[in-house]
């Protein structure tokens, strides 16, 4: 297992290098003089010259790439053009909210997806199966921002059950508050995160449910399941203890991949629900064409995704020895 962990960690290095090169390449895509384009038509020549110096645009691209690597090695993501603050500081203030949203959405997606997938497989060909798979097809096809709007319209505007926008206290702080006798803080945080997390989770829940159904159908035909029934075990026990444990293996790697999609979807969901995370920051950075900030955000998203996949791969290898031996 240790050899597998080392091999997998080493693979992360070229991946991270590639991601940094792509992120750096964004600056090369800017048509014309990047400094003039980024500052817009009202910028004075001095402002443009200043930005050219700050971004190192007078040097050849390979010198700038080297400097970019050097800067990143020291944990420096550069300075935002418009917020005049270090990019790492700006991102640091927002990243927690996005990760919280994505993690809650992933938990919801897994819970809903696995439950519906198992139900559909166990009742194959029944009305439950048809309705579940129809819902899954709709969930895969529904734009996340539209679902977000519909949920907001239904549960916040019409029914007035849940808050339409904003975030309660950070979830970890809220849990601590609840443990110290203030449960209403946690309750408020849950109410705020429910709609955005549900909107974000729907697409992944649909994909997971389809995958679990297919995987469960394969496992339910295996000899060991027949043996379990022959031993006289009851159906719920066979399904949950025997079949589901095996059916979930291939689903695990997909759940990791879904985290990347959730991070991307968070950009849209955060805009709709005014969730103060990296998504909103991405929107303002892109609106202002604040390239150092855009580069920092893109790289942060990519590195989080790479790390999550590393963890998922290691977990997979832990539960399925064939992976690390293969």
């Amino acid at each position, binding site marked *: 297992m240790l050899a597998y962990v080392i091999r997998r960690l080493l693979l992360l290095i070229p991946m991270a290098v590639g991601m940094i*090169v792509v992120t750096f390449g964004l600056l090369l895509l800017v048509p014309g003089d990047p400094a003039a384009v980024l500052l817009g038509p009202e910028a004075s020549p001095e402002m443009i010259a200043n930005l050219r110096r700050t971004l190192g645009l007078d040097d050849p691209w390979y010198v700038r790439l080297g400097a970019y690597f050097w800067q990143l090695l020291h944990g420096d993501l550069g300075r935002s053009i418009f917020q005049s603050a270090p990019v790492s500081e700006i991102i640091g203030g927002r990243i927690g909210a996005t990760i919280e949203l994505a993690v809650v959405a992933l938990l919801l997606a897994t819970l809903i997806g696995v439950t519906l997938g198992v139900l559909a497989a166990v009742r194959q060909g029944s009305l439950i199966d048809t309705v579940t798979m129809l819902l899954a097809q709709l969930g*895969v096809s529904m734009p996340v921002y539209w679902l977000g*709007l519909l949920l907001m319209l239904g549960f916040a505007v019409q029914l007035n059950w849940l808050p339409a926008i904003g975030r309660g206290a950070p979830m970890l702080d809220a849990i601590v508050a609840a443990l110290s006798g203030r449960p209403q803080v946690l309750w408020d945080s849950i109410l705020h995160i429910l709609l955005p997390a549900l909107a974000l989770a729907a697409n992944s829940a649909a994909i997971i449910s389809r995958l679990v159904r297919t995987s469960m159908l394969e496992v339910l035909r295996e000899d060991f399941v027949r043996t379990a029934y022959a031993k006289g075990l009851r159906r719920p026990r066979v399904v949950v203890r025997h079949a589901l444990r095996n059916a979930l293996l291939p689903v695990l790697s997909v759940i990791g991949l879904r985290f990347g999609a959730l991070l991307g979807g968070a950009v849209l969901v955060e805009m709709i629900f005014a969730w103060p995370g990296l998504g909103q920051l991405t929107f303002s950075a892109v609106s202002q064409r604040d390239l150092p900030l855009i580069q920092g955000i893109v790289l942060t998203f990519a590195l989080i995704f790479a790390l999550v996949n590393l963890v998922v791969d290691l977990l997979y290898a832990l539960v399925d020895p064939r992976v690390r031996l293969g």
Partner: protein
Amino acid sequence: MSAMRIPKPLRNPSLVIGGLIILTLVFLAVFAPLLATHGVDQPDMRNRFSLPSEVHWLGTDNLGRDLWSRLIFGARISLSIGIISVTVAALIGTSVGLAAGYFGGWVDMLLMRITDVFLGFPAVVLTLAIVAVLGPGIVNISAAIIAVTWTEYARVVRATTLVLREQNYVQAAKALGASWPRILFMEILPNTLGPIIVLASLGLGTAVIIESALSFLGFGLPPPTPTWGWTLSYGTRFIRDEPWLSIIAGATIMVTVLGFNLLGDGLRDILDPRQLTRAK
């Protein structure tokens, strides 16, 4: 007299429903100038936010512009961007996948590491970043979509090529002295077309979603271009009192993506029977 037999593809409900949705959409987009009941930007201030009626089949927006006419012209934009981006992404991804799978060794390693790097970026974030630096426009939006979608083709075509290159007919072609371009394009490529067609259908749905997401955020084609995402986006300003505008624009996007997804699923069932057996 033999009984009428329904051809096998027509017995696949996903293929039939998805195909019908997409055929209808293509018909509406192609003949939009003839089918539009009003001018795309023709305001009618006396009929603002009207619900569906005989005059305005899908109602009107905040300026009284006819939604039906705007949505069928919007279909042209979504489909154009979808077709451009899927064609180029398929060409790039297929070339990379064929080269990686056939040559193996360091070529495979290098190309697949590059593919992994691009797969590692969340699609919406990277497309937003690319559109931010390139600026809006059909070509730039398509380029951004291509950057995040070519990887799927590369992975699938590589996997198929790895299997095909060991087949007897490919080995025989090699033994007869066929050049590598001939083997790749005449022997291997035709047998990878099935998965590519399935991916292309699903990819069109993805392209529609990404394009409308960019327009929704205000980074798509600038108004008054009647993109679906923009129609949905400005509808949100009036969502409390006039939700119809956002609902119909979002439903149009959803039905289109559903059509492409069903078509892709149906094509997969037909072109890859093993998948069907596994799923049933």
